[in-house]
């Protein structure tokens, strides 16, 4: 298996491992942002899909938290930010240790791949929780 495939497999394994956490935060996002603020989640997905820098994602969450009271409710913003900065960073470290990846750019790419998976799961749960809350 070449390195790219091994990275994708490790990212998939880690994504399965944080699924429950993403569900928990997605449910919280549905509670805080409600259906009225859907653009906040699509905005988060959009920045994750368009940037190569982890710091752009973190800056986005900080700005949203500072400017939108819904992100402050139940500490939604700080919780998502902390998860990305600590938990996902640790998982990136694990993958790089397992695959013996020392190249800093590759490490950064793996971090972004994990964040995209996490935000994708969070956004899916956000939509699901909204439908459930509407009795769907």
């Amino acid at each position, binding site marked *: 298996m070449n390195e790219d495939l091994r990275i994708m497999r490790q990212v998939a394994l880690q994504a399965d491992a944080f699924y429950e956490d993403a569900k928990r935060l997605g449910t919280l996002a549905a509670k805080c942002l409600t259906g009225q603020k859907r653009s906040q989640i699509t905005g988060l997905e959009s920045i994750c899909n368009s940037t190569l*820098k*982890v710091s752009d994602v*973190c800056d986005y969450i*900080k*700005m949203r*938290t500072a400017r939108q009271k819904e992100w*402050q409710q139940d500490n939604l913003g700080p919780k998502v930010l902390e998860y990305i900065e600590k938990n996902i960073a640790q998982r990136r470290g694990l993958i790089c240790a397992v695959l013996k990846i020392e190249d800093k*750019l590759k490490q*950064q790419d793996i971090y972004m791949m994990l964040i995209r998976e996490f935000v994708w799961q969070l956004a899916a749960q956000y939509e699901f929780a909204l439908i459930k809350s509407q009795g769907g």
Partner: protein
Amino acid sequence: MTEQHLLEQLRLRSDAELYAEAISFAAENELPDTKQMVGLLEFSRSWKMLMQYVKHQRQRDWEQKRAHYGDFYKKLAEYLDAKNTGLRDRARTKWVFVDASLPKKQLEEHLDRWAGLLAREFIQHLCAAAEYKSKLERAGKAQEANSDNEYHGN
């Protein structure tokens, strides 16, 4: 050094160093209001514009309640442009964004560009850190006030 390589270095430096440095800078300094920070971000499109703006703001005669703004801009100017330790010199010597063998004029032009891009990254992180810090502090104070009111039976 290809353009591609330098852009990769820029994004690495931004995540690995400038992000953490912006958080420290926001924590260690009394910050100006959001309007000032937005202005700073606006002027960070080029190195020359940014330095002119920072210099201008530093030299302004701030009214009493904004007296710390001058200190903030002084510290920012040092962070960006201090000899040897400033961002511009680090771009040249530590991170080697420019080829030292270039003629002086060309070297300065290259440095303007790459130091400007690095500064833009730092300022973006600083603005986010500043707004976030300010909001969390206000939320903390509001929570304290609520707790006091509950304690005093209000």
